[in-house]
Each structure stands twice: as C-alpha cells, then as structure tokens.
C-alpha cells in the first residue's frame, strides 16, 4: 500500500515537542497514571489505544492541563507545565484538542466558533480571524455551513468544525480524544479523512482511537495503555503483526473480531 509513502512524506523531525518523564497522577486515592514516559517529536503521529478506563483520556488531558499531574514533568514546546497560569494559557494555545463530544459553543455560529480563539487569545483582528476561519472551514469541506449554528449540523459535520476550530489557533500539536466514537458509523469516514489530510500536511498528532485502519495508515507509533501505563509502543507493522506484550495481543484479538 501507499501507507509507507505517506509516512515518508512527513517524517518526524529530530526536535522534541512534548517530553513527559515519570509522570504520575492520582484521582484521590486512585493511582490513574503510573509513571508515564513519552517523548513526541515534531511532525510525529502517535495513536494510543487500550481498554476503557486505562487512563488514555487522562494522559492526553494532562498535556494541556485539563488535568493536573502530581509527579514527574511534562514539557511542551520547551515550557514546563506548572501552576503558572500564564504558562498554562500559552501551552493551551499551542495545543489543539478535539473531544469525543465535539464541545462546540452552541450559542455561536460556526464561523464565530472558529474565530473566537484567534480574536481573544491570539489578538488577531476580527476580519483576519474570519478569513482564517473560512480557510479552515473550506479545508474540512464545510464552508457553506459557516453561518449556521452547531445545533443545525450533523455529528460528523460538528466534529469537522471542531477540528477546524482547533486548527484556527495554528497549534503545534493536536490531541484527539476518541474523535469518532460518538459518531454514527456513516459519519466516521468523513472525520477520519480530514484527520488523514492533516497528517499528510505534517501536523503533530496524538490520537486516542480504536480505529485500527487509521492507526495502520497514519501512525508512526502505536501504543497500548492499560492500568495507567504505556505497556507497548511500536511501529504499526510491529504492533499489529508482532506485538511484544501479551496484553497487546489480547486487546487486538478483542477489538479486531
């Protein structure tokens, strides 16, 4: 297939964009992340899978401080995540996030959803922000809906808008938390296609998903999480055909029935 070629088009650079070392997190007494080590290079694409409750969402939410970690360090684009609010806001502006349930702002039109971040966070003039917004709406093939409200769009369309909204901030990294698992099957493809296009352009991506086809064709590395740890991290070929860990084989056999 041409998967290999795609991977070569945008191969990772040597620069690290995210460095996580020995990171732990607790929810009360519950030790949800138990020593995460993860380095992500610029333009690298990582897919994380694993059983429900294993801490995948928590891990990527720690990267933009939607959750606070208690031990270890997380460095994003050279800035360490601490309680420094200014730093957190700066990092959040560099890290785009796409949620399972889209989380568009229902009281704003699509174009206002997109222009809001650039205008208020990046201080871009309104007109320019709206031009950028239209550019990204075209990119996710939904420009004709610009004046509508989120409630008037289908799930797949809403998720594409959510992706465009993140892109408008011109992020260094995009985090995806099960972006297609709340969608009806016929809408999954339109969202995955947009993500594949993004990948082709060299976006750094961390994607939590169980779409194994997507992982095979797009990821540089696929990881398996369980019990708050990254149990296996491998190239897609190795991960799917020659897994090191028993847990990975079990997981794959369950998911690929």
């Amino acid at each position, binding site marked *: 297939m041409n998967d290999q070629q795609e991977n070569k088009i945008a191969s990772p650079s040597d620069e690290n964009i995210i460095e996580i070392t020995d990171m732990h997190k607790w929810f009360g007494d519950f030790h949800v992340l138990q020593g995460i080590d993860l380095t992500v290079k610029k333009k690298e694409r990582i897919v994380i899978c694993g059983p429900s409750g294993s801490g995948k969402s928590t891990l990527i939410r720690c990267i933009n401080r939607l959750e606070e970690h208690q031990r270890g360090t997380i460095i994003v684009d050279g800035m360490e995540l601490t309680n420094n609010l200014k730093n957190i806001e700066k990092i959040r502006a560099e890290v785009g996030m796409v949620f399972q*349930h889209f989380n568009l702002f229902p*009281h704003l039109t699509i174009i206002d959803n997109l222009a809001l971040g650039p205008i208020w966070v990046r201080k871009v003039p309104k007109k320019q922000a709206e031009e950028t917004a239209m550019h990204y709406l075209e990119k996710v093939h939904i420009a004709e809906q610009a004046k509508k409200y*989120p409630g008037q769009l289908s799930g797949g369309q809403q998720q594409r808008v959510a992706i465009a909204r993140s892109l408008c901030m011109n992020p260094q990294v995009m985090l995806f938390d099960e972006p297609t698992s709340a969608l009806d099957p016929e809408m999954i493809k339109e969202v995955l296609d947009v993500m594949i296009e993004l990948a082709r352009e060299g976006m750094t991506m961390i994607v939590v998903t169980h779409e194994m086809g997507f992982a095979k064709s797009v990821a540089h590395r696929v990881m398996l999480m369980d019990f708050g740890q990254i149990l296996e991290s491998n190239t897609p070929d190795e991960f799917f055909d020659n897994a090191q860990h028993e847990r990975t084989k079990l997981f794959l056999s369950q998911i690929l029935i």
Partner: protein
Amino acid sequence: MENTIQDTQTSEIKPPIIDVGVIGWMKANLFDGVFNSILTIITLILLYKTVPPLISWAFIDSTWLSTGPECKEATGACWSVITTNYRLILFGLYPYELQWRPLIAVIILIGLLFYSKDRKHWSKYLGYAWIIGLFVMGILMRGGVLWLKSVETSEWGGLPLTLLLSIFGLTVAYPLGVILALGRQSKMTFIKYLCVVYIELIRGVPLISLLFMSSFIFPLFLPEGVTLNNLLRAQVAIILFTAAYVAEVVRGGLQGMSRGQYEAAESMGLNYYLTMRLIILPQALRIVIPPTVSVLISAFKDTSLVVIISLWDLMKTTQTVINDPQWMGFSREAYIFIALLYFLGCFSMSNFSRKLEKELDTGY
C-alpha cells in the same frame, strides 16, 4: 363524498364538515363529554352574572369628571377620583408648578426603554444615549443647576420614584447577582463562603425588615454628622435584596452547563474571565431568562413596600388620595388605576423576556 374518495389517492383528504368551523371547534373544545359540557355551562352562567354588571359599573354608569360628593350619588365607578387627582398620584409631593420636570424625565426614560427593546439597536451609541439620558433625568428631577429650582429627594414621589427605585434597582441588582453566583462557585474558599453567607442571610429575611433596617437601624451605625438620604438607603436595600435572588437563579443556570464547554474554552487558552464572559455566561443566562424575569418582576412590584419607610411611591400617593375625606370610599377605582400601571410594567417585562428568549434560541 365521491370526490373525497378519489382524492385519497392524491393524498389530499378533506376533514369532515363537522370537525371544522365554529361548531366543530365548540364540539371539540367546549362540549366534548358530559363533565366538560357542565363546566362550560357553569362558566357561561358565571360570566353572564359578572361581566355585564362589571361593564355597566366601569363604563356605562361611571362618572369621569365630577366632584367627590357628586360621585357618591352615582351608582357606577367614580373615575373622577383619578381624573381629579392624577397629578398627586403620578408625581406625589413634587412642587405642583414644577411637575413638568418629572414628566419629561419619565418620558425620556420610557422612550429609552422602548428604543432599547430591539436588540438591533444595541450599540455603543445607545449606551451613550443612556448615560446622557440618565444625566438629564437626574438634573430634571434634582434641579439646583442652571435656572432649575432645586427639589429635595424627599419631595420626589409617585411614578418617577417607583420607576427610579425599580429600574436602578434591577439594573444594578442583575450584574451584582451574576457576580455573586460566580463567587459562590469560586475555588477560593473565602470568596465562596462570603457569597454563600450573603445570599443565605438576605434570602432569610423579608424585604420589609431589610427596608426597616436600612432606614432606622443602619443610620445608628453611621458616624455623627454623616447622613445618608432615605431614598438612597431604600434603593440599596432593594438592590441587595434582589441581587441575592438573581444570584440563586443564575447559579441554577451555571450548574446546567456541561464540563465540556469549560474544557473546550480552556483548551484553546481562554482565561477564566474570557471563558465566563464569552462562553459560559451567555449560555447560562439565556437558559434562566424565564426565572430571572420572575425575580425581576416581583422585585418591581416589591418596590411598593417602600411605603412603610414613608417614601412617596405610587402606592403611597394613591393611599393619600383615598384618605382625602372628599374622595373617601373610592379606593377601588384608585387601586384599579395603579394596578393597571403596575400591570403595564410587568407585562412589558415578560413580553420582552419572551422575545429575547426566542431571538437567542439557536436550537440547542
């Protein structure tokens, strides 16, 4: 009939005659079943017994321009009590020959309110218009500049006073209530408990006692020589009282917001202030428009309680008129008149809220 049968194929079925028109409607809505028919008949009898006498009392037998004693002869309503005393009712003790000033102030105020009703008109110029308008109203009421004679606030009364207390009360209480609601959700414990204690204390006390306290007890704590005018104290009491209720309503709206909205806003780097202002409050406040307007409407009506600390609001001026020996016994007419004024205020508010709700509906 034959036609109808053929038409079924083209999916245009006409309803049977009996189901449409006046008779059909009456059958469906007034006489469907024995119980409903009995209710309808009883209602009709009651209406027949009450409406015609009411109409002849209010309109046919009523007197409009007569003196008190003449009124007592007549059998119908004595609207003369209004037509003779309307200036006392509307403007209270404000110097008679200067009453054009509160009149213009009220006209400016109502004009501005009407113009502001349409959201299309909301702009920074309207903001300036309000600032200038309020300034002009203040000067008209208070005087003491230019050639305008000074009029003490203790002489203010009637409609301008009621409108002043309620409109200022509501416009200050609303944002204060929103701030209190946000404070109650704050992660900073001190602020949080301050707001909780404030809200619960105020809600645990009737407005009447707050007004008493502000008017009789509060001055005892002021240093000697400092006086705070009675009107201002009542205004503050109304604001503090209403804000606590607004806060609870808004809190309900905030609790209805999903985590996802906060997260989406935060994850793009919006700070707390912008998240609240751009994302959370616009949605939360919209959800609670109906209960908020209920709170505001009752606050509007509750301003009539200031009679007890002897401010001359509409209620007080009306009572003064009906205590006049010449007009004794016509309290019905006088109360109907101010009830109508209050109704106009409340009805416009709920109309506006319904309109706003519809305009802000984006289908979620």
